[in-house]
């Protein structure tokens, strides 16, 4: 508790409040831009945060994090095209509301819902994270190894649409993660001394998200302008409030636990929340035509799950979403050793971050409700300038890591890889997580076998490890059964199947 108060003390100094506000504004401004999701927002703005002190950087980063997410949902509501899979639902119902002249209410319920969910989820984080961390420090390398394998497996096989493509992404990432001399011998360095330290993850992330996206959009640039719905001041009537508050709370209840599992992700809880609201609503006929519950619930679920992903991130050093992956990179960039010992080694940092999240979330509401019409104007930025700007800032970000032209060449090569991944429908998330976790996986395996003096059975000698392997086996069986039962529709994760196909139809309509 004292630590939390200390955290607030750090977060609430005037200077750091300024950084938080700056982060929220920057994050929203960049996140609103079409084609830029929260993960890309973080990746592009990461170099900016490197330059200030660690605690200010973390506070600013928390602001960018929430700002980027809010910006993304604004875009989904005002243009009918989700930037990422977790805002698919927001795009469906929100855009229908906007078209029916209720853009202001849609933005309001999204913003206030995100705030409510974010606040509750942050409080849950305060309670859950230390307890998880206490359990986690008692675990040995075999358990970490198992948990990492589970995270990789879940992100790859459970979340994605096509499992084959998920594994292609994952193993490409693991191969990139091999580059370097961490084992004492040069692996996959092509004799290039600049590759001895491995490929900087910032370069990989910026290349995949920014360069890959810009090239991909350039190949398919929409020549006719999108219809943008004008928006005034967001507000809600008493009836809207009455219809929104329960979905907010239910969405939060769905989102947080799913995010906190080491196999998190925001897709499932948003779909579940949407399906639940549709069932419970007194106005089921409005769903698909702009029901406010259909925006309120999924938006809350999305935000709560995003906060939930911080549990495995902070307690275990396991990222399960692209956004969390960039966050891990950021923490490492500030010079912190992420992983199970982070909570013990740097309690001030962790609690500073947890307090900042709360502050940033509140600032987001205060700043963004009045500024919504301004953000909507950003959607009109000419596309050549938008994507030229993305290339410019991506290059600057990659260059500023070491000031080497070589990093820019890497950026281009991996960017081209990102282009082809989009072309062939290979998900980016497993690749990023593979690059990050691959080397750690090898490290934990080495530690475990060193202690057991090469006896492989040590890998299943801890109860947690055994449980994790059983869970993975069950997932495999469930996937196989689902695949046999409905071979034609088996390309979705089993649990999301029913809703998922539902949504696809809605999107196409």
């Amino acid at each position: 508790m004292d630590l939390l108060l200390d955290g607030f003390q750090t977060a609430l100094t005037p200077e750091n409040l300024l950084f938080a506000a700056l982060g929220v504004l920057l994050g929203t401004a960049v996140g609103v831009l079409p084609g830029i999701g929260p993960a890309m927002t973080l990746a592009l703005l990461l170099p900016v945060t490197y330059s200030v002190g660690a605690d200010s950087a973390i506070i600013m980063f928390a602001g960018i994090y929430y700002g980027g997410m809010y910006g993304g949902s604004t875009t989904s509501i005002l243009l009918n095209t989700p930037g990422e899979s977790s805002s698919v639902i927001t795009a469906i119902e929100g855009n229908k509301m906007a078209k029916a002249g209720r853009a202001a209410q849609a933005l309001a319920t999204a913003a206030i819902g995100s705030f409510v969910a974010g606040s509750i989820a942050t409080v849950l984080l305060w309670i859950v994270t230390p307890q998880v961390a206490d359990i986690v420090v008692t675990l040995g390398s075999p358990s970490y190894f198992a948990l990492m394998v589970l995270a990789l497996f879940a992100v790859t096989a459970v979340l994605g649409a096509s499992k084959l493509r998920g594994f292609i992404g994952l193993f490409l990432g693991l191969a990139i993660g091999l580059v370097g001399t961490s084992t004492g011998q040069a692996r996959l360095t092509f004799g290039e001394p600049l590759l001895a330290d491995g490929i900087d993850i910032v370069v990989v992330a910026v290349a995949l998200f920014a360069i890959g996206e810009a090239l991909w959009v350039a190949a398919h640039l929409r020549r006719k302008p999108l219809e943008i719905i004008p928006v005034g001041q967001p507000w809600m009537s008493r009836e809207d409030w009455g219809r929104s508050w329960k979905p907010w709370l239910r969405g939060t209840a769905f989102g947080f636990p799913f995010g906190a599992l080491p196999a998190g992700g925001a897709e499932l809880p948003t779909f579940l929340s949407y399906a639940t609201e549709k069932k419970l609503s007194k106005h089921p006929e409005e769903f698909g035509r702009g029901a406010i519950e259909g925006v309120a619930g999924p938006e809350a679920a999305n935000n709560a799950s995003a906060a939930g992903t911080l549990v495995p991130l902070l307690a275990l050093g396991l990222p399960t979403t692209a956004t969390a992956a960039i966050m891990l990179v950021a923490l490492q960039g500030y010079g912190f050793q992420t992983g199970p010992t982070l909570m013990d080694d740097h309690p001030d940092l962790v609690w500073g971050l947890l307090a900042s999240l709360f502050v940033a979330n509140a600032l987001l509401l205060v700043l963004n409700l009045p500024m919504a019409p301004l953000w909507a104007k950003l959607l009109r930025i000419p596309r050549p300038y938008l994507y030229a700007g993305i290339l410019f800032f991506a290059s600057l970000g990659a260059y500023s890591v070491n000031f080497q032209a070589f990093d820019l060449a890497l950026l281009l090569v991996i960017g081209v890889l990102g282009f082809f991944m989009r072309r062939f429908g290979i998900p980016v998330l497993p690749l990023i997580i593979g690059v990050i976790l691959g080397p750690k996986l090898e490290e934990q395996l080495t530690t475990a076998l060193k202690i057991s003096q090469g006896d492989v059975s040590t890998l299943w000698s801890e109860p947690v490890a055994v449980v994790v392997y059983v869970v993975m086996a069950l997932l495999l069986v469930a996937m196989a059964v689902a695949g046999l039962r409905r071979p034609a529709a088996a390309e979705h994760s089993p649990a999301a199947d029913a809703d998922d196909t539902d949504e696809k139809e809605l999107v196409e309509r």
Partner: protein
Amino acid sequence: MTTPDLDRPGSRVVDKAQYGLAAFLVLAGGYVLVDAAGLEDGFADQPVQPYTIPYVVGGVLALLGVLLAVATARGDRPEAEEGEDVDLTQGTDVRTVGLLALVLVANIALIDVLGWAITGALLFAGSAVVLGSRSWVRDLAVGVALSVGSWYGFYVGLGIPIPAGILDGVL
């Protein structure tokens, strides 16, 4: 490895380009294997040999390439990524992508000589023109403002001097 989703009866149009990706995966996997074969045994305190994981990764990559080729032949087609500004109803605009890549290559080739303040401006203006902007004077002006602005932003605001290239002493 589960591959029940490979079957999608009804669609018999084969995405031939996907064979290219499959070949790339096999080649990449093969390269990882060859690279791993060239590694020596680790030190006595390395229970995991330096080549163990590369063997696994390379082998699986090659296997995935083969699986993808099989799936492609059976009519599996990728779901290309959607986006706010993406219009998938038209084919790939190879010319724009190629020119953009050229702009990026030019930036890489020139940055050490000319410095970021110049190449950054060219990068922005070049990309904007390639992407369809018609007023290249304004593009260049915006580009110069961005690159010089970011140079001073890094130098004054963050205290990081970006190498200035031939403008050393001018900026």
